């Protein structure tokens, strides 16, 4: 009800504002500041720009009655619409979504390949988010995100991000530190490729080490996370804030997204990033060094086929650590990342008592270089408003080298993919991605080239 009252008030104000505008327009005549030639001046006596002002003229009762009727009519229309056609929610709600539709074609291969075809990318996500409690005093807001992804084979819609976030420290003053608490299913704070956005990861596919056939670091998990920063540098001239130290520590089930935990042990993920604490105009703006670590335990299984060792209480350690460096300062961007995994498993045995354990070390790295023409990644692009549906076109060629060794003890089993790509951002939430992947999978002696054309669009 209060919303209706507010809307009626707003409408009333708008109408009065409109009446103001009309009143202002009525009292003025268009005046051009164009200078006239001498001939024109002689020929025509220049009329005074504004002869009289009837600024203080009162409106008549009839005009006022007409305005009141208009407000009443709009109020009735709005009440009916609110009742019948307008969706409502108990708290603030933003509905958004990201979808990826792609065509994949294998252009050359020395072994038989899967057929070419159309598919989803990794996202067909619809997301609901908003504030459950907004703190105007210090910005200690409680917010939520609930999203569903329907692009994960076999195309069942599944929960994606499902979490609450609370700002423990104030969040309004850009010159002060922040600390947030996140509870629920979420991304893990490890590295760049597994968790950062398109400003640092231009390729359509996630790097191998971050994906399911690597260390699975991009997968979501259920848990809690504290993340924040220290020593922020703030350049008020550009409203640019960069904290010298960013940190995140999380505690997770370790069993992945949409799965219940199978043991009592929890995995710990931590990341620290050091940013160049400089002004906006500095050449070092956008330079970051990061380190991440993931440590935990999983149920002990045979390393061939993953059969669980019976008997209970058996666990295998799971450790990942990585370093990254990035320099993203439009128009150029560069990222390099390195990650190592150590996974314990059983070589043999059927029970805890007779299990023989071994550790597999895997290793992956990526190097990405990109350049962009256009304003897509400048904050001002999101700050510009025009009457038409304007968005700055941005062109972004890039190259990425992606290398993965699933077992460093065995030679000749690495995979390398070099991606030559081009992204075209042509609308506010839409881009076309063209990727050409040159792959060398040494384990199967496969050399294949693959072309991906993907539209990513959102609402």
């Amino acid at each position: 009800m209060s919303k209706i009252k507010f809307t009626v008030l707003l409408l009333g104000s708008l109408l009065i504002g409109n009446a103001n505008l009309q009143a202002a327009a009525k009292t003025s005549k268009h005046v051009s500041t164009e200078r006239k030639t001498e001939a024109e001046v002689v020929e025509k006596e220049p009329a005074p720009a504004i002869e009289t002002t009837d600024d203080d003229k009162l409106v008549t009762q009839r005009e006022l009655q007409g305005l009141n009727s208009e407000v009443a009519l709009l109020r009735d229309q709005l009440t009916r619409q609110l009742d019948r056609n307008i969706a409502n929610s108990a708290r603030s709600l933003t509905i958004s979504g990201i979808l990826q539709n792609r065509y994949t074609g294998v252009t050359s291969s020395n072994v038989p390949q899967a057929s070419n075809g159309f598919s989803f990318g990794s996202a067909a996500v619809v997301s609901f988010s908003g504030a459950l409690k907004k703190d105007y005093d210090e910005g200690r807001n409680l917010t939520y995100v609930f999203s569903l992804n329907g692009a994960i084979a076999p195309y069942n819609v599944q929960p994606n991000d499902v979490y609450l976030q609370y700002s423990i420290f104030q969040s309004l003053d850009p010159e002060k530190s922040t600390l947030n608490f996140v509870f629920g299913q979420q991304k893990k704070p490890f590295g760049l490729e597994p968790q950062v956005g398109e400003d640092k990861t231009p390729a359509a596919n996630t790097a191998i080490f971050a994906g399911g056939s690597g260390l699975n670091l991009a997968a979501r998990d259920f848990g809690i996370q504290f993340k924040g920063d220290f020593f922020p540098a703030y350049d008020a001239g550009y409203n640019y804030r960069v904290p010298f130290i960013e940190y995140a520590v999380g505690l997770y089930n370790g069993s992945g997204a949409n799965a219940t935990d199978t043991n009592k042990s929890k995995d710990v993920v931590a990341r620290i990033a050091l940013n160049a604490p400089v002004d906006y105009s500095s050449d070092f703006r956008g330079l970051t060094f990061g380190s991440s670590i993931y440590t935990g335990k999983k149920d002990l299984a045979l390393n061939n086929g993953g059969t669980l060792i019976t008997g209970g209480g058996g666990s295998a350690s799971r450790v990942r650590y990585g370093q990254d460096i990035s320099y993203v300062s439009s128009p150029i961007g560069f990222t390099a990342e390195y990650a190592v995994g150590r996974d314990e498993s059983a070589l043999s045995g059927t029970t805890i008592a007779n299990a023989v354990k071994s550790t597999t070390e895997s290793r992956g790295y990526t190097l990405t270089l990109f350049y962009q023409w256009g304003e897509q990644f400048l904050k001002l692009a999101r700050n510009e408003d025009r009457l038409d549906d304007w968005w700055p076109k941005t062109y972004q060629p890039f190259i990425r080298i992606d290398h993965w060794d699933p077992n460093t003890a065995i030679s000749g089993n690495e995979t390398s993919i070099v991606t030559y790509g081009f992204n075209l951002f042509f609308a506010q939430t839409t881009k076309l991605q063209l990727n050409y992947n040159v792959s060398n999978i040494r384990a199967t002696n496969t050399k294949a080239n693959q072309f991906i054309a993907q539209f990513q669009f959102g609402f």
Partner: protein
Amino acid sequence: MKKWIKYFPLALLFSIGVVAQAADKPAEIRFSIPSTSFQTTNAFYPVAELVIDHKLLEKEFAADGIKIKYSILKGAGPAVNESLAAGLGDFGNYGDLPVILGKAGGLPTKLVLGHEQGGNTFILARAELHINSLKDLKGKKIAIQKGTAGETNFYRFIEANGLNSKDFRIVNLSGADGQAALAAGSIDALSSGYDRPLVDQGLATVVADTRKFPNSIKSRGALVVTDAFARKYPDITKRVVKVFIEAAHFVSQDKNLPELLRVTTKAGYKYKYQREELVNTSLKDKYNPLLDQDLVNHYKAIVDFSLQHKLIRSKFDVDQFVDKSYSEAALKELGLQHYWDKH
């Protein structure tokens, strides 16, 4: 043949360079301007809005075939700085504090024209607090928007009243959030421009305002140009300045007040408050664009203020930053050298 191929790219580059050097006019002139917070497609400053509304620049450069591009930015002064730094704007038309912060941060610009003296600042308090003076607000939570000219307006105003920032609990909120927070009772007071919808709704009262204070404590915006553009196109720069002077001359005349009100109301300002702000004001003083000693001193004071409040790290020479050559030439051309009083 092989030699020809080898040197072709170099020859091509050279040709492009020669053509570029030969161009004495740009294909377009790009303006970065902050928007009003109510109507984000319209310019914040009335002179700029008039220039846009009357298509004065388009008319000036029509015969040259030069296009005019406006970027109206919701992010206020900081967004204008970002636009100029990214090479996406040739001219910026914005408030004193972000002009100073941009220049102090290394933005290669020069100040070529002043505009608009003194938009008034109003301190609003929640109606139920029954606060009647600034001193009664001591220890209370008051919202300002940092990084904008409104921040300097507020600090200079309270300092003129014998108070300082430590006397209040300052909260950084955008204009819209500040209004919502005051209405919700989350803050006690708000430093606002002259548009005061919360007062109309009975939710807030005016505690103090700058109407009776001298213009020297109020903000003064400016037109800046990038060094590169001014160096490459000095005549075009002078003509742009001339157009802004013509607009300032137009709004400086009392007979044009109704048209000024029409333009600002269209930009989203409330007619009632605009009229109140302008009707008993000397428009000629308010829209005086001269780069006189008064303006130079104002910018020097803002530099000192920014340094004192640690908004900038080092001083720069305001006298070097201000370039009067374009405005002096344009004023002479228009015969307006003596129209405005020099201070």
